[in-house]
C-alpha cells in the first residue's frame, strides 16, 4: 500500500513540478456514490450518517475531532486547546482567523449559538441526544474563549464537542437546507434526488485538500454502486456488497463500528433465566458465519462497542459453540421449572444489514438444533422500532430483537446507558450493579474510566449474559484506482474529503 502511495505520488509529481513536495499532489473533482440521499443538510443533524457523511467536517466543523486513523484521541479542530476549570466546566480556546463560508468571522458567540440551537426546543436536533440528562450553560469569555459548563460534570465533554457542528450566529432556529460552515468545502449545488456538489473554499483556514470538487450521487442498490465505480461513473462508494467486492485493487474492507446483536428481553420467561441466556449464546456457531454470510474480516463481538473503544476488554472471551453444553443448561433450567418450551421469537428488520435474512435463518436453525423453539419474524423499520425501544408491549412473548448498534465515537458511554441501564430505552433488563457501574464510569476520567468500562463489559458478558453479541461488522468500499483513500471505522458516519488523495 505504501509503495503504491509513493509511486502514485511520483506519477502525479512528474506531471507537476517536483516529485518530492507533497503539497503539489494532484487535485481534481471526484464523484462519490452513497446508498441514501441526505434529506436535509442541517448541521445540527450531522450525527445522522446520511447527512454527516456529506457535511461533517467538510462543510460544518466541530471544536474537536476524534482521531480514527491513529491513537491520538481527541484532537483540536476549531478549538486549539481546552482545559477543565476548577468548577468542572470546560474552557475552549478557539482558533482565530477562521471564516464561515458566508464571509462572517468565527468567534465564541457562534459556538454559543450553535449550542443553543442544538438544545433548543424549537427544532429537534439529533445532536441533542448526546447531552441527555445534562443542563448546559455556555459562557462567552471573549471572542476566542468560551466556557461550557455541564451539570452533572461531563468528563468527556471535549469528545462530545466532536459531535456539535458550529454554525454562524445568524442561523435561524429552524432547519436549514443550505448549511453555512467553516469547513474546507461549501455547498454549491443540491438537486434533490440527483446530486449534491461540494466545492473547495478559497478562504479556508486549514490545509487545502486535493479534492477540489465532490459530487455526491445516490443509489439504493449496492450492485449498482459497485458497477458505477467500475465503469468510472463514480470514484468512490463507501459501501458496496461483500459479493461485489471481488477486485482487490479497488475493493477494501473496513471495520465499520456496527455491532450486530440479539437483544434479550430478560423480563419474560424463559429468558429471565441466566442458564437459558447462556444456552442461547452457546448454541450459536459464530465462527461458521465468518467468510460465509458475514465477511471474512468481521470480528466476533464480546461487547456492544468495537475494539477501538475505550475500556474494551480483551480478557472477555466469546462463548464457544458448544451444543452439548447448551442442551445441558437447557435441561437444568427445565428441571428448575423454567418454561424452556415456550417459543421464542426473533424479531429482525428487513434489509437491516447485508444478508440479514440468511443470518437470522441460520441462527434460527442453530438454536433449534440446541433444543430451542424459535420463530422468526421480519418487520419493516417502523415496526421494528416498536419492539426494540421502550415502552415494550404488554403481554408479549419471549423475544430476541436482532439489531445493529453503531458506536464509532471511541467511548462506551454512547452505548452503555441506552442498551443496559435500567432506564435505557433499549435495555432488556434492570441490574443495580450495571446501573452503578455505568454511572461511575460516565463520571470517571482517564484510566479509572477505562477500568470501569472494562469491568462493566466483563460483567455484562459473563455474569448477566445480557444479550447475544454476534459480530462487529465490516463494510466494503470500492475506491477507484485514481484515488488514495482508505476507509476507517468512522467512514459510515463521516467521510472527510480532505483525507482523500488523488493520484
Amino acid at each position: 500500500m505504501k509503495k503504491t502511495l509513493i509511486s502514485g505520488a511520483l506519477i502525479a509529481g512528474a506531471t507537476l513540478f517536483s516529485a518530492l513536495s507533497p503539497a503539489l499532489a494532484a487535485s481534481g473533482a471526484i464523484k462519490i456514490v452513497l446508498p441514501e440521499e441526505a434529506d436535509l443538510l442541517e448541521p445540527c443533524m450531522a450525527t445522522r450518517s446520511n447527512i454527516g457523511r456529506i457535511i461533517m467536517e467538510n462543510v460544518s466543523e466541530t471544536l474537536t475531532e476524534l482521531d480514527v486513523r491513529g491513537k491520538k484521541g481527541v484532537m483540536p479542530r476549531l478549538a486549539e486547546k481546552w482545559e477543565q476549570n476548577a468548577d468542572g466546566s470546560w474552557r475552549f480556546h478557539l482558533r482565530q482567523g477562521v471564516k464561515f463560508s458566508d464571509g462572517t468571522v468565527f468567534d465564541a458567540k457562534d459556538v454559543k449559538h450553535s449550542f443553543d440551537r442544538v438544545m433548543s426546543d424549537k427544532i429537534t436536533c439529533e445532536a441533542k441526544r448526546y447531552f441527555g440528562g445534562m443542563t448546559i450553560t455556555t459562557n462567552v469569555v471573549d471572542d476566542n474563549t468560551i466556557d461550557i459548563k455541564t451539570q452533572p460534570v461531563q468528563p468527556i465533554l471535549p469528545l462530545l464537542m466532536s459531535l456539535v457542528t458550529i454554525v454562524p450566529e445568524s442561523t435561524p432556529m429552524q432547519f436549514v437546507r443550505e448549511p453555512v460552515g467553516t469547513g474546507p468545502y461549501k455547498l454549491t449545488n443540491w438537486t434533490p434526488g440527483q446530486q449534491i456538489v461540494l466545492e473547495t473554499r478559497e478562504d479556508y483556514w486549514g490545509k487545502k485538500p486535493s479534492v477540489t470538487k465532490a459530487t455526491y450521487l445516490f443509489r439504493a442498490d449496492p450492485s449498482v454502486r459497485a458497477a458505477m465505480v467500475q465503469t468510472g461513473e463514480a470514484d468512490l462508494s463507501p459501501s458496496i456488497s461483500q459479493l461485489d467486492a471481488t477486485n482487490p485493487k479497488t475493493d477494501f474492507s473496513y471495520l465499520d463500528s456496527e455491532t450486530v446483536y440479539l437483544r434479550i428481553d430478560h423480563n419474560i420467561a424463559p429468558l429471565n433465566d441466566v442458564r437459558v441466556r447462556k444456552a442461547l449464546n452457546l448454541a450459536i456457531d459464530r465462527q461458521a458465519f465468518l467468510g460465509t454470510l458475514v465477511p471474512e474480516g468481521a470480528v466476533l463481538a464480546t461487547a456492544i462497542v468495537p475494539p477501538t473503544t475505550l475500556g474494551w476488554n480483551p480478557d472477555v472471551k466469546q462463548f464457544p459453540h458448544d451444543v452439548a453444553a447448551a442442551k445441558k443448561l437447557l435441561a437444568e433450567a427445565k428441571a428448575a421449572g423454567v418454561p424452556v418450551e415456550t417459543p421464542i421469537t426473533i424479531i429482525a428488520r428487513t434489509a437491516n444489514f447485508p444478508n440479514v435474512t440468511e443470518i437470522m435463518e441460520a441462527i434460527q436453525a442453530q438454536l433449534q438444533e440446541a433444543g430451542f423453539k424459535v420463530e422468526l419474524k421480519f418487520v419493516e423499520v417502523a415496526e421494528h422500532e416498536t419492539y426494540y425501544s421502550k415502552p415494550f408491549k404488554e403481554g408479549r412473548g419471549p423475544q430476541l430483537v436482532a439489531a445493529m448498534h453503531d458506536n464509532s465515537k471511541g467511548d462506551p458511554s454512547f452505548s452503555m446507558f441506552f442498551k443496559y441501564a435500567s432506564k435505557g430505552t433499549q435495555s432488556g433488563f434492570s441490574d443495580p450493579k450495571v446501573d452503578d457501574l455505568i454511572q461511575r464510569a460516565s463520571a470517571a476520567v482517564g484510566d479509572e474510566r477505562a477500568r470501569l468500562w472494562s469491568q462493566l463489559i466483563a460483567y455484562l458478558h459473563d455474569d448477566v449474559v445480557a444479550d447475544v453479541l454476534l459480530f462487529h461488522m465490516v463494510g466494503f468500499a470500492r475506491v477507484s484506482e485514481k484515488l488514495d483513500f482508505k476507509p476507517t471505522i468512522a467512514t459510515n458516519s463521516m467521510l472527510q474529503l480532505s483525507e482523500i488523495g488523488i493520484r
Partner: protein
Amino acid sequence: MLSFIRKRSVASLISLVGLIVMVFFLSRMTGDPASLFLPVEASAEMKQQFRELHGLNDPLLVQFGRYVGDVVTGDLGESYRKARPALDVVTEAFTWTLWLALITMSLVTSAAIVVGSLAAFRSGGFFDRIASMLSLIGASVPDFWLAIVAIVLFSVNLAWLPTSGTGSVLHWILPIGVLFVRPFGIIVQVVRGSMISALSSAYVKTARAKGVRSGPIIFIHALRNAMLPVITVIGDQAASLLNGAVVVETIFGFPGVGKLMIDSILQRDFNVVLAAILVTALAIFLMNLLIDLCYALLDPRIRH
C-alpha cells in the same frame, strides 16, 4: 362536452376527498414518525418535542381539521424529514415520473400497436406465435431482475450506457427499456385480441369488397375501431406508471415519485405521502379525462 367534464370533475373530487380522508387516518395508524426521524437512542422528551413541533400530539380530528384548513389555502404542509414544503418535494419528483411515463407509454403504445396488429392479421401464424410468446415472457419477468441484468450487460460488460442516474439522454434508455417490457407485453395482447375481432367485422368485409389493400385495412379500417379497449388498457398501464415505477426508480436512482412515495411511507412522512397521492391522483384523473376525450375523438358515436 363541458357538462361532461364538469360532472366528471365533481365525481373525481369526491373520490379525491375520500382518498385523502382514508390515507390521512389510515396512515396515522401505522406508527410514529418521531421514532423514525430520531435515532433509537433519542430520549422520550426529544420524541415528545418532535411530535409537539409537528402537531402530532393533538387528537386525530384536530390534526385533520388543521390539515383540511391548510389544504384549502393551498398549503399541503411540510415534509418532516426534508424541512421543505411537501408539494415542492412532490412536484419535483413527479416531473421526472411524468416524463418517464410519457416517453415509455408513447414508445410502448406505438410498438405494441404495430406488433399486435401484425400478429392479429395472421393470427395463429409464425409471427403471431413468436410475438405472443415473447410478449408473454416479457410480461412475466420481474422488473428488478431485468433491471440488474440490463445494467450488468449494457453498462458493465458492454459499457454502452451509463448504469443509472440522470443527466443525458443515454441515462433514460435503461429505465425506459426496463419499464417498457411489461406494459408492452400486456398491450400487445389486448391489441391483438381487439384487432382479431375488428378484422373479422363486417366493415372490413366491405373494405375488402372495395379492393382496399391489407395495409390500410389493418391500420386504417380495423385499428381505429380496435383502439377503444386498447386505450382503456393503456390508461391502466399509464396510471400504474404515474403511481411510480418504484422498483425501477430505486435501482436506477431515478428521482421519481414512486421512490419518494415508498420512502415517505416507510418513514411515515405523512404530508409528503398525502401530497404525492394528491398529485398522482389528480394526474390520473386528468389522464382519464384525456382518455375519455380520446374515445370521443376516435369514435364519433360517442361524440354525438
